[in-house]
């Protein structure tokens, strides 16, 4: 290095202040970042941000010769040789599952999302399978919306819920959110087998909900002497909408006299309940089912 050059460099170093140094360092960092950014840009493939499930995709592949294509996504892993200089085709079969995909070709990589196709199927949860009639908000339905590839359809969709029993239909339409729609419906006045249907687009699913009588509205019994004691029997037991309370429902008869208390549980059979109570000369007989208490009889053995 000549003396002139050394002098110039020393002079330059001496003249450069802290601000100038900082600017130069920043410029250096910016240069590196820009280089890395350009490197990153060069490594990107030209793919759309989203693709609908089942649709194919054409990816421009510049260059010449042969290269290896990689595709990794949900339920998919592809490695195959492709020819550069044209478009690389990904078929609908390659892109059926919704989710995030990574594509790599000739050292370039990119990612994109596959989103669900239109609604094709519904997973329908209807609860409970047996409900009391004439009860508000007792039937719940939850519908999960899926496309033909079993992807959850996240775009909002109208979902119609219908509950039909004995010709009476209750309908409610909800809009799905994040692939799910749900509703709560009243059970109908009359008991029976209800058809609970959820539908969206061309998809429809049916469930059966058995609507049965709710608690008895009132219980009326009669008593009569028989050779083994006192025979007590109810009239047909119905709920407040007039539906017969289901056979098998427990009815409790209680007799109280000077000797103490006797209790007999009986099941409703063909709409009525009956039981045999011990003979007594002076008893008070009562009847109940669940929280409902029926009439009371003062028994005198004359």
């Amino acid at each position: 290095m000549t003396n002139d050059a050394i002098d110039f460099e020393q002079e330059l170093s001496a003249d450069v202040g802290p601000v100038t140094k900082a600017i130069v360092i920043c410029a250096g960092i910016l240069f590196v970042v820009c280089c890395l950014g350009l490197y990153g840009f060069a490594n990107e493939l030209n793919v759309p941000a989203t693709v609908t499930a089942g649709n194919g995709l054409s990816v421009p592949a510049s260059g010449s010769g042969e290269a290896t294509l990689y595709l990794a996504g949900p339920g998919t892993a592809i490695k195959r040789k492709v020819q550069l200089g044209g478009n690389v085709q990904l078929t609908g079969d390659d892109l059926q599952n919704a989710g995030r995909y990574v594509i790599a070709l000739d050292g370039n990589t990119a990612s994109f999302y596959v989103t669900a196709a239109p609604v094709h199927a519904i997973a329908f949860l209807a609860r409970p399978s047996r409900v009391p009639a004439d009860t508000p908000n007792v039937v719940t339905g939850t519908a999960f919306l899926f496309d033909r590839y079993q992807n959850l359809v996240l775009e909002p969709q109208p979902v119609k819920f219908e509950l039909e029993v004995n010709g009476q239909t209750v309908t409610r339409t909800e809009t799905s959110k994040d692939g799910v729609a749900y509703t709560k419906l009243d059970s109908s006045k009359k008991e029976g087998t209800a058809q609970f249907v959820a539908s969206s687009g061309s998809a429809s699913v049916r469930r059966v909900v058995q609507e049965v009588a709710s608690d008895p509205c009132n219980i009326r019994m009669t008593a009569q002497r028989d050779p083994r004691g006192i025979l007590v029997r109810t009239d047909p037991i119905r709920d407040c909408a007039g539906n017969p309370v289901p056979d098998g429902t427990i009815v409790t008869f209680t007799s109280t006299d000077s000797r103490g208390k006797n209790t007999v549980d009986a099941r409703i059979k063909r709409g009525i309940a009956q039981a045999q109570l011990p003979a007594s000369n002076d008893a008070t007989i009562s009847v109940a089912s669940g929280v409902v208490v029926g009439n009371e009889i003062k028994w005198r053995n004359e």
Partner: protein
Amino acid sequence: MTIFGRIALAMALAALALLAPSQKMDSVLAATAPSVSLNVAQAGPRQVEETTQQAVARDYAAAWQAMAEALDQNRADLLAANFIGTADEKLTAGIAEQRKAGLHQHIVDKGHSVDAVFYSPEGSAMELHDSARLELQVLDGTKVIHSENATVRYVALLTAAENSWKVRMIEAVPQF
């Protein structure tokens, strides 16, 4: 040091600073379940009980651990305890294709910020929105084909099984 020497040093330091995170992340790899922070404040229509919240967070973390190991080792048998239905079928199919192509995926899981957005009225299904912080690698044998650090958003459907919650569907989405 000359001005050019300083520029070169600054460039080197900048390059090191940009490369340092990926070197650090390699050491994060661990065989334990990832951290899952589950927020249930927005869940409905059913309120999430505290024990359910704990169980879902535990089982979802276990599912991610199982999925990461299954995709890395190409072993679908690791999925059965945590996945069911569509999720199990799709992951199993993907692993079969990976094995056939000689590929595998390596996931360094740096945690999940999860919101429960739906809990079915009868308590049998829950939908989650998960922002997962991941380091993802796709490998052909030992050759890294793709590597990135990303926050990926997932929608997951979980259903109550006998004594645990299982992932029935999991999809990455561009946005919630």
